[in-house]
């Protein structure tokens, strides 16, 4: 069991590229505080960056919109939930679960699935339209 116990925080942000860069670095730093090795923290940073970029491009059509990011550490399980209030996914969005990398258009989501131990895409709880992505990774010492 991690010495870090259970804790977390929630931040509200916009899908501005500068803000996305800042937030993904803050979450990577949080993972390090939670016990993540540097390599894992850098991969978590990539996963968060891809999730936020997807929200910008798909939910807000490349524009700026509101996001809520919740970070929790429960024992060794580090989780990030990113919710938007934008355009809903028109079909059940899934993380590509293939042995071979998919077409390049899906690389971001594919990498997210490769890096994180659990990934779930659901309806946002912020409104009845948006999308939520919850991703978790067990932090090993």
């Amino acid at each position: 069991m991690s010495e870090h116990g259970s804790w977390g925080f929630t931040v509200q942000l916009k899908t501005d590229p500068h803000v996305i860069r800042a937030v993904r670095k803050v979450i990577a730093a949080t993972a390090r505080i939670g016990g993540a090795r540097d390599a894992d923290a850098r991969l978590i940073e990539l996963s968060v960056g891809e999730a936020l970029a997807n929200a910008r491009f798909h939910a807000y059509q490349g524009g700026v919109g509101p996001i809520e990011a919740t970070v929790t550490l429960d024992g060794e399980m580090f989780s990030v939930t990113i919710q938007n209030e934008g355009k809903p996914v028109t079909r059940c969005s899934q993380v590509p679960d293939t042995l071979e990398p998919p077409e390049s258009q899906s690389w971001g989501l594919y990498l997210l699935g490769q890096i994180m131990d659990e990934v779930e895409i659901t309806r946002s709880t912020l409104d009845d339209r948006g999308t939520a992505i919850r991703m978790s990774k067990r932090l090993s010492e």
Partner: protein
Amino acid sequence: MFKCWVEKSPLAAIVHVRGDVDLLTASAFRTCVHTTASSDSNNGGMIVDLSELEYIDASGLLALDEGRRLCQQHRRELVLVAPPPHVERILEMLKLTELLPVLNSVEALSKHAQFNDEQLDKSVNETPQVVPGREPHGGRDPQERQANR
């Protein structure tokens, strides 16, 4: 801080990239890679020096893959040099390491098929030709780079 610049020689064009390739910078990185890969003035191979890369997202990785395809069209090889461990792991996840040679250092190019020692010496010792608007090479020297890996 992001920087991307090109060092040219008769043997190869070396694209150096420093910092984060993300939503803010992927377009500039893509332009740098595309321009170098498809340049008629580049008669040799193409090297992308990743030793000072901090972060690269899917759009940056896509730019590398597009660069590979452009190099193929121009009958030259694209070689990646000195990716940090976390970047190399991402390249492996996408199986780009099966499509692109990845070398530890510029020196390792001497053992690579398309680069012989004589040409390499000529390449790394030449005064860099800076692409307009790009910064001159200001990174660590290759030996120091390898030592720090």
